């Protein structure tokens, strides 16, 4: 995107000064950012950008219009307002709302530098495409071309189908070692494994007992069978499998791979929502209160800050939980509240007053922002004291009273629930296990059941979409009420049966 797309989009001289100042502060604290380009936009532009996921050029699709509709209405009714957007590219682009007052702009600029540092240094972002601005624009051109050629409705319908399955990717895939995966695919084929060579015939039946050899042969056979199976192992990146093996026309292949690329690009943001917002909030608050804030601006800042940090009863605000967890970690490592001595101490008073002057806090939070994602962040650093202090609870639906009720305040339960919601972004684990099910070219997926059943209605609709891509019947292995079941979708009909 060239900045000429925006009229008067540059920072005013005053704000440019502010930006330089804040950048210096941020670097002083050890933040390490990509170059960041700020653009000033009005509310309509920022709502559009937000609807488009931060990218000014995306392919045409109604869901962007849907998001825009909601954002612009929320703005018009004064219910929500976007202060800032920042995208993970190098250089990074950040959009500031023109109508923000100076204090807001200072806060927001500090916040942006927090995000950019996170994008650059967090491990889970390390494989993302930092030239996504161009890539998105190329995607748009490609899809527009296809629309002109094959008709908007046809192409958009296919996009709709692809979006229904865009979550069936494997965010960990970019981190696997490709060499290792290759070698596993081709187990060495030796004639008779395990046979010990011997010159003495009479010893053979002792050194290589026939039963053992038979067993070995069977093993080998089943392995060979397995290698004939496609995929050899359950594959979580269903989209990749479809790209490789579904009978797609060229344009369909393009669309699906575009949807997949974009899904992989956005995946780390979903994986690090709490951390990313927490980190940025930690730094805007730090920079503002320690450096950038003038006396006269304190009230405005406090107001804005309180607004973003507000915890509504019953809801979890990722900004708040994230920033408080970072502060908690910093405090614990500053006071040496970690390690064997601390964990094993039984004296609550001593634990509360614990202080070894370790002063490792700052160092520790930088380490956390480098290696963690939300799952490991919560798993490793959420403490019982924290859950108590912020009054976290789990809730569940009570069928008897037909309402949601507070279920539990137990630390373990809260943590478990939080982790469950964060793992795989709270979505079911679905793998492709067979691309030639029943030897009829049908697709077999497997839902790894972890205590919660699939919603049958939405499964049916998703399978309908899958069927449009695979062009053959779709099967899903799952469990319903503790019983193994097989969903089947073909010729517009959905059936389920016990297996």
């Amino acid at each position, binding site marked *: 995107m060239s900045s000429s797309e925006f009229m008067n989009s540059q920072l005013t001289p005053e704000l440019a000064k502010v930006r330089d100042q804040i950048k210096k502060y941020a670097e002083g604290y050890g933040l390490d950012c990509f170059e960041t380009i700020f653009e000033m936009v009005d509310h309509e532009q920022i709502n559009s950008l937000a609807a488009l996921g931060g990218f000014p050029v995306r392919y045409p699709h109604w869901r962007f219009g849907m998001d825009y509709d909601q954002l612009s209405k929320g703005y018009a009714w004064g219910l929500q307002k976007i202060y800032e957007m920042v995208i993970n590219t190098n250089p990074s682009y950040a959009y500031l709302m023109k109508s923000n007052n100076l204090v807001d702009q200072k806060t927001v600029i500090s916040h942006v530098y927090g995000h950019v540092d996170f994008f650059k240094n967090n491990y889970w972002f390390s494989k993302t495409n930092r030239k996504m601005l161009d890539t998105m624009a190329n995607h748009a051109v490609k899809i527009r071309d296809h629309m002109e050629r094959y008709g908007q409705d046809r192409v958009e*319908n296919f996009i709709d189908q692809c979006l229904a399955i865009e979550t069936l990717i494997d965010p960990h895939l970019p981190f696997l070692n490709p060499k290792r995966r290759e070698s596993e695919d081709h187990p060495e084929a030796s004639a008779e494994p395990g046979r010990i060579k011997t010159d003495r015939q009479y010893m053979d039946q002792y050194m290589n007992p026939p039963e053992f050899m038979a067993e070995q042969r069977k093993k080998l056979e089943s392995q060979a069978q397995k290698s004939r199976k496609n995929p050899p192992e359950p594959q979580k990146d269903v989209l990749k499998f479809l790209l490789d093996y579904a009978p797609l026309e060229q344009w369909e292949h393009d669309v699906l791979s575009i949807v997949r690329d974009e899904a992989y690009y956005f995946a780390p943001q979903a994986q690090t929502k709490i951390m990313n917002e927490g980190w940025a909030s930690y730094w805007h608050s730090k920079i503002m209160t320690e450096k950038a804030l003038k006396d006269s601006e304190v009230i405005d800042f406090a107001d804005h800050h309180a607004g973003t940090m507000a915890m509504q009863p019953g809801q979890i605000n990722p900004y708040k939980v994230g920033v408080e967890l970072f502060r908690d970690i910093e405090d614990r490592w500053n006071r040496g509240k970690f390690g064997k001595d601390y964990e094993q101490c039984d004296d609550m008073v001593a634990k509360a007053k614990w202080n070894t002057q370790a002063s490792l806090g700052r160092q520790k939070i930088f380490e956390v922002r480098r290696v963690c994602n939300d799952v490991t962040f919560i798993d490793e650093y959420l403490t019982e004291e924290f859950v108590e202090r912020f009054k976290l609870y789990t809730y569940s639906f009570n069928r008897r009273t037909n309402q949601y009720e507070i279920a539990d305040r137990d630390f373990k339960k809260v943590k478990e629930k939080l982790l469950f919601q964060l793992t795989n972004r709270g979505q079911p684990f679905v793998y492709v296990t067979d691309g030639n099910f029943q030897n009829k070219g049908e697709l077999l997926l497997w839902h790894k059941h972890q205590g919660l059943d699939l919603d049958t209605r939405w499964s049916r609709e998703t399978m309908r979409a899958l069927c449009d891509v695979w062009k053959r019947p779709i099967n899903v292995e799952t469990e319903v009420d503790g019983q193994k079941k097989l969903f089947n979708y073909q010729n517009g009909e959905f059936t389920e049966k016990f297996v």
Partner: protein
Amino acid sequence: MIDNIKRDHSRFRSIVKGKIKQDLKKYVTHGEMIGRKGKDLVSIPLPQIEIPRFRFGEREQGGVGQGDGKPGDPLAQGDPQPGEGEAGNQAGNHTLEVDLTLQELAEILGEQLELPKIEPRGHNTLKSKTDKYTGIASQGPSSLRHFKRTFRETLRRQISSGIYNPDKPVIIPIRRDMRYRSWKTDVRHENNAVIIYMMDVSGSMGDEQKEIVRTEAFWIDTWLRSQYKGIETRYIIHDATAREVDEDTFFKTRESGGTLISSAYKLCEKMIETDYPPSDWNIYPFHFSDGDNWSGEDTRLCLDILEKNLLRVCNVFCYGQVESRYGSGQFYKDLREHFGNQHQSVILSKIENKEGILQSIKDFLGKGK
């Protein structure tokens, strides 16, 4: 960017309205957003399109929240549904809403029921004048001064004459720079319409019947408003006597006693005579009743009024009979006997229950009159 999103936006709205991609319609859910208008909370009940996904049964999932309360306490109103609770800049699973204007509602109604556009009776005698401040003039009252234009003129003059100093940008307009808004008068020919609602409020009309009338009246109103520029509505209630009331009273009154339908028709007749000369107005009387009239004699009187007077001046006369446990439904039969089913300007409709409303609206408005 803005143009692109506008295109996506209008496409989304077309889908929601069911104009294109009908197969997505089953994914449209109706959320709402609570807004504030003055002191009042307003809800804009509106749709969202959900993209199907493999997901868990919604109610089974539960989640993590924050706040006071002990186990077993219900979550307060407005608490999260699973999937919500996002704050910040990245768009997630928001509840969605689309504002439908009444005009759009009418369009949808028209499409759904395949209502024809109404052919107004052609008297383009009504003129309306509107003044629009579209022009710019160099003379005018100072209350109409156009600051921006004046400023621009001044700036232009100062720059071209070399007075302007960017380091000390002082702009002083002189008389020649002043610009004022000026108006043009638009004359438009309009078709005006009046709807006269009459309702039987005798003892046999219960709340349910009134609810039906109210709903139907709303939709009729909406449709006719989409067809005419200036529309007036008048309300008459009657039992044994008739009187004109305001909208509020019309739907809320419950009286008792006997029923003389002719009383309403007489009042209607008088109303038209004094206020709505048929040469200038499209007139739509609607009468709702449970079909009980006091006597056969009064019914004859009603038919007489209709025949001799009302039918001559109205576009169409509509009678809707709301089924009630107490009514005999005789009036419908009498009307049908007299006018037959296919009368040009008398439309009869029976509304058995709420589900019957749509069909009834179609009966009334389907002829395009």
